[in-house]
């Protein structure tokens, strides 16, 4: 299946929830509305024509004017095609349902987006920080315009802790 066919099929199925972006981008992608996000993911994974069983990556993007999006790159090893799926998140409180129910691989990617961008993934099975250390409370470093303190003291491990 080539890209047009995939796009047609999804548009037929989900209609207004899908917005196909074909601008000057070399890489065309599909916007999906947040309400239908998980539904579309499940369809993409299970439909025999789609079969996107492999989540290549999932990452947050912070666009100007404080718009958050998450971008998923999916690939189907069966049909050898790939797709970029994007979700626009609510402005004031970036929040999305978790995709871990569809792909286990989303687990760490979502944890990473959670701590670095402050995007909340609802229903995530293990919402601990992944890369930053546990006492980190200097905001979400990957957001644009984040200015961290010049000097961040090492967490004091001598107090308490059993490891």
């Amino acid at each position, binding site marked *: 299946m080539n890209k047009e066919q995939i796009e047609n099929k999804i548009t037929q199925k989900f209609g207004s929830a899908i917005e196909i972006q074909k*601008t*000057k*981008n*070399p*890489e065309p*992608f599909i916007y999906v509305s947040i309400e239908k996000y998980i539904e579309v993911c499940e369809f993409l994974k299970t439909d025999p024509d789609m079969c996107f*069983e*492999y*989540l*290549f*990556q999932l*990452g947050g*993007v*912070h666009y*100007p004017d404080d718009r958050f999006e998450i*971008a998923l*790159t999916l690939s189907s*090893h069966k049909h*050898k095609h*790939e797709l*970029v799926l994007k979700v626009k998140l609510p402005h004031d409180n970036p929040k999305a349902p978790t995709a871990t129910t569809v*792909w*286990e*691989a989303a*687990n*760490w990617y979502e944890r990473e987006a959670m701590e*670095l961008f402050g995007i909340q993934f609802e229903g995530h099975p293990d919402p*601990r*920080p*992944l*890369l*930053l*250390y*546990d006492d980190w409370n200097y905001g979400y*470093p*990957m957001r*644009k315009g984040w200015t961290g303190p010049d000097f961040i003291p090492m967490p004091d491990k001598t107090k*308490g*802790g*059993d*490891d």
Partner: protein
Amino acid sequence: MTDVTKNIQLSEEEFLLNMGPQHPSTHGVLRLVLKLRGEFIEDLTPHVGYLHRSIEKIAENRTYAQFMPFTDRIDYCASMPCNLAWALAVEKLAGIEVPPRAQYLRVLMTELNRIASHLIYLGVMSLDLGAFTPFLYTFREREWILDLFEMTCGQRLTYNYMRIGGVSRDLPPEFYQSCKNFTKVFLKKVDEYEALFTYNPIFLTRTKDIGILPIAVGLEYGASGPTIRGSGHNWDLRKVEPYSSYEKFDFNVPLGTKGDVWDRYMVRVQEMRESCKIINQALDGLPEGEIKAKVPGVFKPPAGEVISRIEAPRGEMGYYLVSDGSTKPYRVKIRTASYGNLQVLRYLSRGWKIADLVAIFGSLDVVLPEVDR
């Protein structure tokens, strides 16, 4: 980190063992909290991030060309593929055509680096299984590859060899003969490693039927590269969506059958042979011509978003690159192979012993800076 250990419920016979962050077999700084019953692993929680250097954030403050040396640091065992993936992403964004000679040189270097990386895997794997000697043997051969790299780009570990639109330098005149000798000698050395390992009864009992990864589970967790090919899943980006003129090379994709530790080992050993084949072809068929396309000094690619994917030694790696049309990338998301491969560890190691965990973890060939970035 204390909350992690406190939330785990333990029964009478179970206890927690903290493996890492400083532990000989966690290959860098990975912390595994093991819930053990005797020596059996009931559950395992990996903690990563000890090497987090926020390369993605750094990328937003560097120009496209300036970011190239940082990609070296993503995976220090195999820097060339990281370089290559970045170059490919930017070239795709800007629509730059890379001259054929540069493409061949890129293939040559990535394949040499693939061998070097697999040699580290082999040595470290043997070390994990308690055999010290093969480690030094593999590093002896790796040394030769590093010499070749030094000859070409002056660096031994972080090469910074690729450029946007090509490569930084052409091959020195003595490279051809030295590399030819290497491939000839190296094939014999691979046989030597195999004699030490492949059918060694102790090695077989330690690796056969240990840590079996079903294809479906591997895909679900995002495993790639030799890890998933060991299970018999025929997926190699060099074949599926060839980049940098890989379609012109004749090579096989070795596959395992069962997906155990031994299969993953075997796939890598075979891949070294295949890489030798590719290197020979690249050396013999090296086209004449430019090694770098014309790229303006102040490089401003058009705004847009691209994905680049390559088959790095550890599996699929790639960049998700968002450009706003300025000289600096707007957002770079780095997808590395170890990230997916490490997620499988929890599934693979449950129910096995600590000794098996070491073997399984070794067989995934995870490089931690790649996970933490």
